[in-house]
């Protein structure tokens, strides 16, 4: 007679049922329960759907598969009976605990749902769901703890979620007690731990104090709750390893790996506190966890939902993210200590601020790439751990963090990448092409969307290169301009090397600095060696470039063959930043700086200067900008325009202020202050619904004959 049959007539031998084929149990009758089908099988035993033939309802019947005797048996029964007294909407009701054939079984409420561990998946659940579940689990624990019942084996497979989102916690006080007693309550060793893992698969949820052999208390349940919530959010338990030893070591000593950025900081903080190694540092009651989760829940109800996942590996805590809609303007602000993102509607009156991303690292280069339907932001980061190129396709929620630095000088070149100063997108017809200008001065190109990069040897092997000299900020190739009409022509600006151009796609490069004066060499008009701070081009006039030199403002009308001085009535021709108007090719913005020695705005007045006639004359734009005691510096990439009409102009200062104008510079507003020193400001109009308009004065040549006499006396120059 086999054991299954012995259950049918309840007279057979007490052979361990778990040794039998569980399917034999189908149709067996145990007391007034008829077993209908198998529901599942876990480390602790087999669960069946059974029919209560007295009350005419379906129940779940679980065999615990362990034989106990004496005091342990009494203890288990006492505890199980106490657990069966629990009545709470989030606790699976235990109808009966019994013993038959030497084995314990539990008859409990049948729940139509899925264990949490089976619905988590690799990427975790949306945090809104996790908070809802967390509140219910904490509520269940609070109810049980209030009746002196500790779960002792809370894990995601013991949490069932119904299709309506109702949580039911299973097996209060039972399973772990069984294991512990079965293990003879001896000294805890690696062997007993191994055994616990094999039997229950629950090592991942064990608290440090339980691992140390202490009895554990309700706070051990709160630890397990932290593990369950962490796992639900990320798809992984916080402490893992290949061996029991590794897992144990991680639980005892390692901090949990940081949660992904999409998780609200409040929720992350609750989990972190549940996972404090010392019980005294955790929440002391489940009701506290429940209250904390409810508080986070109500706080996040007013913030935007997020279920976006990334290819990310970067995690920072405490970051706010942007919710960006089509038509919005986004500002990308790189500082010495991280990136901030700002968003506004096209009115550009109010700004939401997100960040800081890349906490503690400097970002000199940012760009928004909307070629080929992307919404990608690129950023370069630099710190003591090196310089890396990162991207985000979800407006900063997640960023790539390449294992290997993709931009690297070839072995044997002797050069070491110090910083990435400029990220330049290829032409719209080449949506997978990108360029980077780096320090030490070199150009890198990618033809596969930034995945792999190669050094442009034509420029790196240029005979001039050994004689380029670092400027104050280092020897950097900081600006790359592509000729929109000639796909073979591009420009590179190097400080201090000067302007170089190629006419054959990068194989050969020529210095193009004729007419640009230097102050740091005995020869005033050398072929190269100029300390160019910025060059700018309007796509409607690709033959014309503007240039802000270390000292001097220049324009070329012939692709850089010759340059002419355009420093007409500006307070100083020293400066760093220079941008062209998005529509008007004769309109350029600069921020004059007093001198190379005193790198601040002249006379303590923060003034943007604008020309609308390609440099024949300049006008100060000051409405809304501080005109007293404002000793500011605007660095070379810290000014930008947007592509709306009227154009928005934005700039950041080394003192951490961000200013903007929504009317082409007529009036200014401080958007933000208190930032780390701003090194880079870029803009994006999201969604491609740009308000286009024909370039004003396109192709109109500015005649040098019409230039007014220079007001040299008002111009601070170094000659």
């Amino acid at each position, binding site marked *: 007679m086999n054991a299954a049959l012995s259950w049918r007539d309840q007279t057979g031998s007490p052979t361990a049922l778990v040794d039998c084929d569980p399917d034999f149990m189908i149709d067996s009758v145990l007391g007034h329960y008829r077993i209908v089908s198998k529901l599942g099988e876990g480390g602790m035993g087999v669960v069946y759907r059974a029919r209560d033939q007295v009350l005419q309802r379906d129940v779940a019947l679980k065999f615990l598969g362990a034989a106990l005797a004496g005091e342990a048996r009494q203890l288990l029964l006492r505890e199980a009976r106490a657990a069966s007294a629990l009545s709470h909407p989030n606790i699976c009701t235990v109808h009966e605990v019994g013993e038959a054939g030497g084995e314990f079984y539990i008859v409990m409420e049948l729940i139509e749902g899925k264990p949490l561990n089976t619905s988590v998946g690799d990427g975790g659940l949306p945090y809104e769901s996790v908070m809802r579940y967390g509140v219910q689990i904490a509520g269940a624990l609070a109810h049980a703890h209030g009746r002196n019942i500790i779960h002792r084996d809370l894990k995601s497979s013991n949490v069932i979620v119904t299709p309506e989102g109702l949580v039911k916690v299973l097996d209060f006080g039972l399973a772990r007690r069984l294991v512990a007693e079965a293990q003879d309550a001896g000294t805890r060793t690696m062997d007993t731990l191994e055994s616990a893992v094999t039997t229950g698969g629950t090592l991942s949820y064990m608290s440090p104090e339980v691992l140390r052999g202490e009895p554990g208390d309700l706070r051990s349940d709160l630890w397990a709750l932290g593990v369950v919530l962490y796992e639900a959010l990320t798809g992984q338990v916080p402490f*893992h390893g290949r061996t029991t030893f590794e897992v144990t070591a*991680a639980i005892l*000593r*390692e*901090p*949990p*790996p*940081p949660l992904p950025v999409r998780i609200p900081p409040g929720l992350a903080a609750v989990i972190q506190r549940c996972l404090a190694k010392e019980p005294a540092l955790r929440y002391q009651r489940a009701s506290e966890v429940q209250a904390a989760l409810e508080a986070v829940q109500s706080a996040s109800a007013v913030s935007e939902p997020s279920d976006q996942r990334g290819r990310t*590996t*970067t*995690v920072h805590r405490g970051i706010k993210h942007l919710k960006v809609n089509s038509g919005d303007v986004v500002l990308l602000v790189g500082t*010495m200590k991280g990136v901030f993102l700002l968003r506004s509607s096209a009115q550009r009156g109010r700004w939401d601020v997100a960040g800081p991303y890349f906490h503690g690292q400097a970002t000199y280069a940012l760009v928004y790439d909307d070629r080929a339907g992307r919404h990608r932001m690129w950023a370069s980061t630099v*710190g*003591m*751990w*090196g310089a*890396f190129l990162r991207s985000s396709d979800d407006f900063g929620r997640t960023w790539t*963090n390449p*294992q*290997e*630095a993709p931009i*690297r*000088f*070839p*072995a044997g*070149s*002797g*050069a*070491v*990448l110090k910083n990435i100063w400029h990220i330049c997108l290829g032409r719209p017809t080449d949506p997978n092409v990108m360029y980077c200008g780096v320090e030490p001065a070199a150009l890198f190109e990618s033809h596969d969307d930034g995945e792999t990069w190669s050094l442009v040897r034509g420029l790196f092997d240029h005979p001039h290169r050994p004689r380029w000299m670092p400027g104050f900020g280092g020897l950097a190739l900081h600006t790359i301009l592509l000729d929109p009409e000639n796909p073979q022509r591009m420009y590179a600006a190097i400080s201090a090397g000067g302007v170089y151009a190629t006419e054959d796609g990068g194989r050969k490069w020529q210095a193009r600095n004729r007419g640009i004066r230097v102050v740091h060499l005995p020869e005033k008009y050398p072929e190269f060696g100029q300390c160019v701070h910025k060059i700018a081009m309007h796509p409607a006039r690709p033959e014309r470039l503007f240039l802000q030199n270390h000292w001097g403002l220049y324009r070329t009308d012939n692709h850089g063959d010759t340059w002419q001085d355009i420093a007409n009535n500006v307070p100083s021709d020293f400066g760093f930043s220079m941008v062209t108007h998005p529509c008007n090719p004769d309109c350029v913005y600069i921020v004059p700086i007093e001198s190379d020695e005193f790198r601040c705005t002249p006379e303590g007045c923060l003034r943007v200067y604008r020309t609308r006639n390609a440099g024949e004359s300049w006008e100060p734009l000051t409405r809304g900008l501080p005109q007293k005691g404002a000793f500011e510096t605007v660095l070379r990439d810290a000014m930008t325009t947007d592509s709306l009409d009227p154009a928005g102009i934005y700039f950041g200062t080394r003192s951490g202020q961000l200013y903007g104008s929504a009317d082409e510079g007529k009036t200014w507003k401080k958007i933000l202050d208190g930032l780390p020193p701003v090194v880079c400001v870029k803009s994006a109009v999201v969604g491609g619904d740009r308000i286009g308009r024909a370039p004003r004065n396109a192709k109109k040549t500015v005649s040098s004959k019409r230039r007014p006499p220079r007001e040299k006396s008002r111009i601070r120059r170094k000659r």
Partner: protein
Amino acid sequence: MPVTFVLPGLLRSFAAGKSQIVIEQSSMTLAEALEALWKLYPGIRDRLATEQGEIREHINVFVDNEDVRYTGGLQTPIRDGVEITIIPAVSGG
């Protein structure tokens, strides 16, 4: 006897969150121990070393309590059982 690497916070995100990595290999130089480390966790290499294979300027590596700058750099011999600690320098602005 294994050699243990002790990682600072930033590198842990490239080592599955671990602060200590044990390498089962004996009789080697620091360069070989590092090779073994980033064979396990490739993301660590480019954070710790430049593309020319040198340890980055502001990163200090200690074998037990000795700064490897004074013990032979990457050729520092690694005895069994030592701890190799990677710590960012006190620098920056």
